[in-house]
């Protein structure tokens, strides 16, 4: 039995390596990691919208999130691995794609393309830059170190205050809104595209898939952008 298990494991890692080396396999990686990150984005938005519920609610939520350390770090590890795999696979695929056409056309129409799928690399890079800044600002608290000392009446970290102070800076807010716009654009192609990459799309469901993808992207943008807008307009104080 042990020998069988070992040989299975060996051949299974062989399969994973073959998948990683193949263009189709790398698209599976893009799709799966993309869907994981998409699920995080949805959850993250739902949590952040608690800012509209009030100081107690969002500070309580933040405390609960951070209370279970093994769970917190497992989730962070999954997200970090997903980001790394998504970016590495994307850059390797982009490299293959560039090499596949060394001489460019003098005239070229990318038929049936959309703004979203022509700009995936640009939107992806801006989102990556934004995520690094966003983590530095609100998770690592190194952009403004005074955030670490914000405490509410119950002695919890005052996330509510931190968000307001952060978004009262118009440069931060504008960068945030641009980034979530690009994130929505990226997802308007990405969500539907991941189904195709995994083989779970056909003409029969295409219309619904694209429609859901678009609606999700618009809702995500509206949700995320509402936070800095509410802070800047003084709706949330």
């Amino acid at each position, binding site marked *: 039995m042990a020998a069988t298990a070992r040989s299975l494991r060996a051949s299974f890692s062989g399969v994973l390596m073959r998948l990683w080396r193949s*263009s189709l396999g790398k698209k599976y990686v893009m799709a799966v990691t993309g869907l994981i990150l998409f699920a995080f984005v949805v959850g993250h938005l739902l949590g952040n919208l608690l800012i509209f519920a009030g100081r107690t609610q969002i500070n309580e939520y933040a405390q609960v999130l951070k209370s279970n350390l093994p769970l917190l770090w497992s989730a962070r590890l999954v997200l970090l691995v997903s980001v790394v795999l998504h970016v590495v696979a994307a850059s390797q695929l982009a490299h293959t794609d560039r090499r596949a056409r060394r001489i460019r056309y003098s005239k070229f129409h990318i038929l049936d393309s959309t703004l979203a799928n022509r700009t995936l690399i640009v939107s992806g890079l801006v989102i990556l830059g934004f995520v690094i800044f966003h983590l530095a600002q609100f998770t690592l608290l190194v952009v403004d170190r005074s955030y670490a000392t914000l405490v509410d009446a119950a002695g919890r970290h005052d996330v509510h205050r931190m968000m307001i102070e952060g978004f009262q800076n118009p440069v931060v807010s504008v960068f945030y809104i641009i980034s979530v716009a690009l994130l929505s654009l990226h997802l308007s192609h990405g969500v539907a595209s991941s189904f195709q990459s995994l083989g779970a799309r056909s003409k029969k469901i295409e219309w619904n898939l694209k429609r859901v993808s678009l609606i999700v992207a618009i809702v995500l943008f509206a949700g995320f952008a509402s936070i800095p807008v509410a802070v800047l307009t003084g709706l949330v104080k």
Partner: protein
Amino acid sequence: MNLTLRIWRQKNANTPGEFVTYEAKDVSPDMSFLEMLDVVNEELMRRGEEPIAFDNDCREGICGMCSLMINGVPHGPLPQTATCQLHMRVYKDGDAITIEPWRAAPFPVIKDLIVDRSAFDRIIQSGGYVSVSTGGAPDGNTLPIPKDDADRAFDAAACIGCGACVAACKNASAVLFTSAKISHLALMPQGKVEQDRRVLKMVAQMDEEGFGACTNIGSCEAACPKGITLDNIARMNRLYLKASVKSGLE
């Protein structure tokens, strides 16, 4: 009508090419695009110049030999129409037309507008066949095949291997071609037997040739003169995943 043609001229694979402008005079709207080029070539030969080399054979849209990137679109502006079936009536007097060869590293230019599409042959050779003789055409309904499967297999088999999908793709990906060939065999009982081996080998060969990956845009489907759909790519993605998992377990 009179047209201005900007055509890629390249002596051979090792010489850099360039665009040369030609005037096509008194073009009849009833000519096919290739006949228009024939007339331009006759004039070139009369002047003692080298005629423009372009691929063609059946000129009835079924052989897959004709190619040409016409104003940035493979096979020109009409949907589901090969260059040989494109007629000059879609153009008007004074139009400027840029004609280029397919551009993809696995499709090197042989001369002018002719590219070497042997990469497609090697993908077929890697697994696009049924290994044993399955006999002649069986009598109808001796081998029951669901109508939907038969229709899908036939749609996939309509691929003529012209390479417009590669030419249209911003990544020069060959997934539409490869998936059509995989699909038309995988949907038939004779081809199903070897489907796992076939999809692993053909995808490996496709990557080996240096084609790009798929961004799921759909330019290939829009450019295909035979209306091959993205459903075939999704089917290949499914079959490849299944075959990969099985190869790790069995």
